[in-house]
Every structure is written in C-alpha cells, then in structure tokens.
C-alpha cells in the first residue's frame, strides 16, 4: 500500500475547514430560524392573542429556546456527520471544488490496489497534494467565512424583542384572551370561596358549644350549598354566592348573640353587677369575681370557701364574720335576681309596664295579650322572659349556696363536732345537713359553670361573626388579593381584620347591638357608631319641613342634576309642595280631599297630616327605638 501521508494531510485540513464552514453555516441558519420563530411568535402574540403561547408572556421565549435547541441539535447532527465523513468523500469534495479531476479521491480510493494504473493514480494524487500552492488553493476552495446573511437572525431577534416590549397588543383575538382570563378568574374565585367556607366551617366545628348552640337554635351549622360548584359560571356569581352564605352565617350568629342565651348571660351579669363587694374579709374575692362576671374565678373561690366553712379549726369570730358576709352576699344575689333589670327594660321598650318583670306569669300573659306588638316582638319578649327566668334560677342557686354556707358557718363549731360524733355513731342529722350544704354548693357550681359556658359561647360566636365579617369584606377575593390587602392593612388589623372588635377603647366607644328590623335582604355593610342612636318622636313642624324641602330640593338639584325631561316635573312638584302644605296647615283638617291637588302631590302631602295625628299608642314605629334605629 502506497504511503498517502500528503494526501491524508490535505484531507485532514480540508475536513477541518469543511466542518468549521458547515458549523458556521449551521449557526447562521439556526440564528436565522430562531429569529424568524421568535419574531413570528412575538407578532402573533401581539396581533392575534396569547392563547397559543403556552406559558403566557414567557411563552415566546420558551418557543424561541425550543427552536434554538432544535437548530443546535440539527447543527450537532450535521457536525458529527461531517466529522464522520470518510477520507475519500472529503477528497472528493476537494476534487470537485478545486477541479482536480478526482485525482485526490481516486488516489485515496485505489491506494490499496497494486496495478500500474492505480499506482500511477496515487502518484498523481500525491503530486497534487504536495504542490506548494495546494494550501492556498485549499483555503480558497473551502473557505471558512461568516455565513451569508448572518446578521438576519440577530436582527430579527432584536426586532422581536422590540415588538414584545414596546409594541402594545392589538385587539384581535381579545375575546379568546378574555375568555381565558375569565376562566382563570372563575377558578381562582372558586378556590377562594372554598377556602373561605372551609375556614369558617372549621372554626365553628372547632367549638363544640357554638356548634351545638347553632344546632339547638334550629340552624344548620353547615353552610348551605357550595359556592365553588360548577353551576356558578362566573367569578362574580361565585363571590356573590360566597358573600350570601357568609352573611347568612353571620346573621345566624347575630341571632345567637342576641338570643335567649345571650340575654340570660346579660341578665346574670347585670344581676351580679349589683353586688357590692366587701372591702375586706374572706368573701371579698368571691364577691369581686361575681361582680366582674368572672365565673371561673368565682367557681374556684366558692370551692375554697366551702373548704373554709368545713374547716373545724376556724375560730368563732372568723366564722361569724364569714357567716355575716355570706348572708349579705346571699341577700344581694336575691335582690339582683329580683331586680329583673333586663326584662324590665325590655318590657318598657315594648310599651308594657316594667313592673310586670317581677311577676313572670303576669308578664307573659301581658305580652301575649298586647295587641300593639307584632309576632316578632312577642317572641322577643317571651325569649327575654325565659332568659330572665333562667338567670334568676342561677342567681337563686348562688344565693341558696351562700345561705347554706352561712348556716353551716353559724352552726359550724358545734355542728362540726356533732357531726363528727354522729358520724361515728352512725347518726343521720349531721349527714343530712352536710349533704344539703354540698348539694347547694353543687348547684351554685353548676350555675357558675353554665355562666362560664355561656361566656365562652358568646366569645366564640363573636369571634366567628368577626371572621364572617372579615370574609364578607374580602368578598371572595383570591388568596393573593387577600394577602395583598392584609399587607396593606397590616397597621389597621385591629380595625378591620382582627377579632377584637368589641374591645373597649380609650375613647369610651363601646360596641352595642341594637335590635333592628331587617328587610330580609343581605347585609352589605355594617358600621359601628360612636354615639347612641337618636330615638324618639320628631317634633318638627310641618312648616319647617316645607321650608327645608324647598331649599333642599334646590340644593339637591344643583349637586345632582336632574335629567332634562324631568326638570319641569321636579320643579313643579317641589315648588307646589310648600304652597300645599301652607294651605293644609292654614285650614283645619278636612275629610274631603282637595280636588286641585295633583296625584303626584299625594304621597308628600300625607306626612303633613301624620304629626298632628295622635300617636297610636306606645308601640308606634316612631316610639320604638328599634324601628327608629332602622
């Protein structure tokens, strides 16, 4: 075999140049196609819509990278193919490009042959390969240069970037975009609704007393329906449904907070609030705890007191002092129970005699007989009666416990000795006295436990209601929206987002609930007012009102212009109103209506008569603070 080193050298050099040239071309093509792809995508995204960019705004770059990667892959494939080209193929390329009449490739191809023609061909090839001009000619024949239009790819990419960042999107295809956006919004709203509802459900279910109370009140603790269900087709519907359900729950919690249990607790607190604690003595702590309404502490103090009463080592003086204080406390508890302040106030507000509170049976009969009360008011009063009765029962239990302990104290030393001896002899007197005392103490403990439970229940209900209000304010906003808002309102958490809405502040503001008549619709806003609501009867004269109506209508027209076609009607109505009122008040009330009065003036003329009409009893809406408040 003939030595082909010169030819192989030329072939190797040519191969390098071919590969580099091919890489250059492939790179140029890759850049071009990547640029074209990105430009097309950018223009498409701007002109048509973004629905076909899989990752939204970043889609153009994703696709650009994919095209670039494919081009690079093709380039790599081409590169490896070129590097694997056999020598004869490379020599053939050289021959064709340099017009060597296939001398090099023939030499490579027949190098293994030994016949004379083959050897002559190899010699020819070597002679060509060793020619001094070969290297220069090779460089000319197989150039390594930047590909043609290499600038096209980067230029297109730059144009695409400029389009993407600086050209505003056109309106074509916005329907599809909006559709996608609304679907996304719907999903977000559903998710947010589900989260809100689940959160409220979890909060209620984590409080067994609250859950039970809602169940006892006849309202299902679970929220009705699922706002995230598929039948709600828009995000607004989902938010509206969420708000409705949350408001519904809030209303039920309101009912609970204003219901029998709340009234019972209020009555108990009012009764206990009348206690005047002794300045010193063993009963001071118990009396103070009771006055504060701290049932837990009172329960603990009561248990301690019972131990003291049973303590045989107590001296007579202390025992006498304790007995006196217990007696005084029992007396105050009874007085507090008999005061029936809450019920008395409710009866008076309903236009009934407040003294009826002392006699529940008579009060019940009076309530049922009252004709000026509507069904709702009757039910509310019955509820107040029941709450007061339960409160009184609890007070009575506490009073009896105090009296029992008082009697034990009075008979403490001797009775303790007797009871010990009787107990040793198997007597029954001491045992029955002890059992009575322990039974009363147990009842008192139950009463305090119930009060404690009611306290907890009301707190839980209030907390849940606050949560409902918070959810209602968020209006089914997405979690991200909520987090944004919460961060914005971080400094105002107590005012809008916290659960301590009823905390007494330095200004003396106290949240209070007024019984109002709702119209049955959804509560869309609530506001705590730092003043007692204005209640009572209007004493303004009709003449004053007529003057205010005239000036008010003019001011109102200036602030909020009336449509042109209604201006004459408006002017005529309010202009004639004063004249008609003056005419009505100048002459006595006549049964016959003024034939000249226009039908439009009738509703306005009607109030002119009402103030002069005697109030229809105490239950008229004007005198009902609840209605006035509404």
């Amino acid at each position, binding site marked *: 075999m003939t030595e082909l080193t010169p030819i192989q050298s030329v072939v190797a050099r040519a191969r390098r140049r071919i590969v580099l040239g091919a890489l250059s071309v492939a790179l140029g093509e890759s850049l071009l196609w990547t640029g074209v792809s990105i430009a097309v995508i950018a223009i498409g995204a701007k002109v048509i819509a973004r629905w076909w960019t899989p990752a939204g705004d970043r889609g153009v770059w994703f696709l650009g990278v994919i095209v670039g990667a494919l081009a690079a892959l093709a380039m790599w494939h081409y590169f490896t193919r070129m590097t694997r080209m*056999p020598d*004869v*193929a490379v020599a*053939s*390329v050289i*021959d*064709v490009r340099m*017009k*060597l*009449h*296939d*001398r090099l*490739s*023939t030499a490579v*191809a*027949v190098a293994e042959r030994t016949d*004379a*023609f*083959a*050897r*002559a*061909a190899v*010699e*020819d090839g070597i002679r060509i390969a060793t020619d001094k001009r070969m290297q220069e000619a090779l460089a000319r024949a197989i150039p390594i240069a930047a590909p043609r239009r290499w600038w096209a790819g980067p230029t297109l990419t730059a144009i695409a970037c400029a389009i993407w960042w600086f050209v505003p999107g056109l309106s074509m295809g916005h329907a599809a975009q909006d559709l996608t956006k609304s679907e996304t919004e719907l999903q977000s709203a559903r998710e947010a609704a589900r989260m809100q509802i689940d959160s409220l459900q979890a909060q209620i279910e984590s409080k067994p007393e609250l859950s039970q109370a809602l169940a006892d009140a006849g309202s299902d603790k679970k929220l009705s329906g699922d706002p995230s269900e598929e039948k709600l087709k828009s995000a607004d519907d989902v938010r509206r449904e969420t708000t409705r359900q949350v408001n519904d729950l809030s209303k039920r919690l309101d009912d609970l907070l204003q219901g029998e249990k709340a009234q019972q607790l209020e009555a108990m607190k009012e009764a206990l609030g009348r206690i005047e604690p002794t300045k010193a003595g063993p009963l001071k702590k118990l009396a103070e705890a009771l006055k504060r309404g701290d049932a837990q502490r009172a329960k603990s103090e009561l248990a301690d007191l019972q131990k003291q009463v049973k303590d045989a080592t107590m001296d007579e003086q202390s025992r006498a002092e304790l007995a006196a204080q217990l007696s005084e406390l029992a007396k105050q508890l009874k007085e507090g129970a008999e005061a029936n302040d809450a019920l008395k106030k409710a009866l008076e507000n309903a236009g009934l005699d407040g003294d009826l509170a002392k006699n529940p049976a008579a009060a019940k009969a009076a309530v049922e007989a009252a004709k000026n009360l509507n069904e709702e008011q009757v039910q509310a009063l019955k509820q107040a009666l029941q709450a007061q009765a339960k409160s009184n029962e609890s007070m009575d239990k506490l009073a009896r416990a105090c009296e029992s302990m008082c009697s034990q104290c009075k008979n403490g030393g001797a009775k303790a000795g007797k009871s010990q001896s009787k107990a040793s002899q198997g007597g029954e007197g001491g045992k029955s006295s002890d059992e009575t005392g322990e039974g009363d103490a147990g009842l008192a403990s139950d009463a305090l436990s119930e009060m404690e439970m009611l306290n907890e229940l009301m707190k839980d209900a209030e907390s849940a209601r606050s949560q409902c209000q918070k959810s209602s304010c968020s209006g089914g906003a997405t979690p991200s929206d909520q987090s944004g808002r919460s961060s914005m309102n971080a400094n105002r958490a107590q005012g809008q987002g916290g659960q301590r809405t009823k905390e007494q502040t330095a200004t003396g503001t106290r949240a209070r609930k007024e019984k109002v008549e709702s119209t049955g619709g959804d509560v869309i806003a609530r506001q705590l007012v730092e003043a007692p609501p204005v209640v009572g009867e209007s004493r303004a004269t009709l003449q004053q009102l007529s003057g205010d109506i005239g000036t008010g209508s003019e001011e109102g027209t200036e602030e909020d212009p009336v449509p042109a076609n209604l201006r004459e009607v408006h002017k005529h109505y309010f202009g004639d109103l004063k004249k008609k009122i003056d005419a009505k008040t100048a002459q006595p009330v006549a049964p016959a209506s003024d034939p000249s009065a226009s039908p439009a003036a009738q509703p306005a003329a009607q109030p002119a008569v009402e103030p002069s009409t005697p109030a229809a009893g105490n239950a008229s809406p004007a005198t009902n603070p609840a209605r006035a408040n509404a």
Partner: protein
Amino acid sequence: MTAAPLQLQSVAEVRAACADFRSVADRLRTEIGRVLVGQDEVVNQVLIALFANGHVLLEGVPGLGKTLLVRTLGRALGLSFSRIQFTPDLMPADILGTQIVVESQSGGGREMQFRPGPIFAQILLADEVNRASPKSQSALLEAMQERSVTIGGETRTLERPFLVLATQNPIEQEGTYPLPEAQLDRFLFKVIVPYVERTDLAKIVERTTGRVQHEEQVTPVLSAAQIEGAQQLARLVLAAPHVQDYAVRIVLASHPTGGGRERWGLAELDRMIVAGSSPRGAQSLLMAAKVRALLAGRCAVSTQDIAALAPASLRHRIARSFEAEAVGMTCDAIIQEIVRLVPAELQP
C-alpha cells in the same frame, strides 16, 4: 487480426502508453484537420468513439461536413472504408451482401459465392440512415453489436476495428423512418454537428474552391493494430468506485423512477421523461470517459469527464414525453439538468 493483449507493469509504462495514445490522437486530429475545418468537438467525440470501440450517429443539417469527416477519418486511419447511401428502397442485401451463383473455378460446375456488401469494411458511413426502411436499418443491428453478420445461415465476422458512422438530417423528417430505440442504443454517441463559425466557414470556402484538393493530402497515421492497442489501453484506464458511481447515478437519474430523485430535486423531470437510458448507456458513458481521460493525459477517469460526455452518450437513449416535446425541452436540456443536480461528490 487481433492485437496482442496489452501488459503494462510499471507506472512508467503506463505513462508512456498514455503519452503515446495522446500523440497518436493528436496526429490523427491533425490529419483530419487538414481536410475538415472547425468542428473540433465533433472530431474529438468521433475519436473518442473510435478509441472506445463505439459507433457514432452524426446528426446535422446537410453540408456541415459529416460525410467528409467520416471519409477523412477512414483515410487517416488507413482502414477500409465504405459508404452506404440509405434510401427507402435500400434492401438488407444491399448492405450485408448476397449469395450469387458463379462458375466454379475448378470448372465443370457452378457454386454459390458470397459477395460481401458494403458493411464489410472497417469504417462504414451510413449516410442518411433514417431514410431507409426499418427492415434495412435492422440489417445493421447485428453488425453493430456483435461485429458480425449472418447471411444465409452463415455468420461472418467483420474485420476489426469496425466503426459505423451514421448520419441523419434532423430537419427533413418527411419520408423518413426514425431509428428504433434498439438501434439507437447501439450507438455509443449521438453527435450533434453544429453549424460552423464564421472564420471556419471562410476557411471552408477558401479550401473547397481552390485548385488544391486537400482531401488528397491525408495520409494514414494509424494502423488497425494501433487502434486496437489504443482501445485496449482505454479499457485499462482507472475508474475509481465513486467516479463510476457518479456515472451510474447520472444514468439512473435519467429514469423517471430512478433512485435519489427526491433527494437531488430531480422529481420535476419525471414528467418530461418516458424512458431513460439503458445500462448500455452507462457502459458507453464510462468507456467514453476513459478515452477522454487518456486524451487529457490522465490515467484515471474523473467525474468531469463523465459530466462532459453525458449529453453525447445519453441524448439518444432518453425518450421524452409529449409534455417535454410540447414545452420544447430537449434531451440535451434534460441531461444538463441531471448533470447540474446530481452531485459529483461521493454520496453515502
């Protein structure tokens, strides 16, 4: 008479043989040039066909020197030459020869004696071959392929070298019989004789109207044995596998269903071609390319040789479609398109 097999053992011998070949061809070209003015490419192709041992179909309008070329070639080669003017009433016996009854030379009887026709020459000029009937045209078939004729059940070998140079007029188609595909395929080349250029025409006029008859000055420069030696040398010329593959790809590309058509963008030509070249076309192409390489002083064929000779080798072997004829796409145009599209580089 057959020349002894050529044996070349060394590179020097090869180079010497190649040089001799070239000098002989040059001398031959010079002798022809004494008579024939211009038409260098035609002469070159005729010489290639001669050394490739192939027949030539010369096509051109009358008066371009086709007959003169052949006659001069015959004189320059020192070979026996005959001419047949093909006419519609020409019979096969007029070409091949016939048996006649003659008096026996030994006396007393008569015997059948074969009188050879004009085909029994080493260079045969078949003038206006398309004017004879197919029956007469087919009389050439066996002679052209087998270099022998069978007459009266007896096969007679023609003397070598045997070269048929047929001419035909492309314009006067009235009353002609186009050569059948089988006969066309026997020709190595179909050479188109172009009209002479101005300077050449001036020389022609000058030479043919003067007192001296230049044709008489032609002397034989090549014997039959030398021609056969040259033909043997041509067969020894190297054709690398990838070069040979190029010839094959060119020929395959002339077929409507040939390989690599989509790859090389040749599918557009499918509707222009009814039938492509036969394998004989590939043989002719490669053989002619070998001679061309020798004439260029090379001992190996190149793809450029193949590309250069593809039109002459293939143009009479490709059958055009009606569409090609309608749009005026000639066989030459088809072949040039094939040569342009089929890559000369080695293909995997």
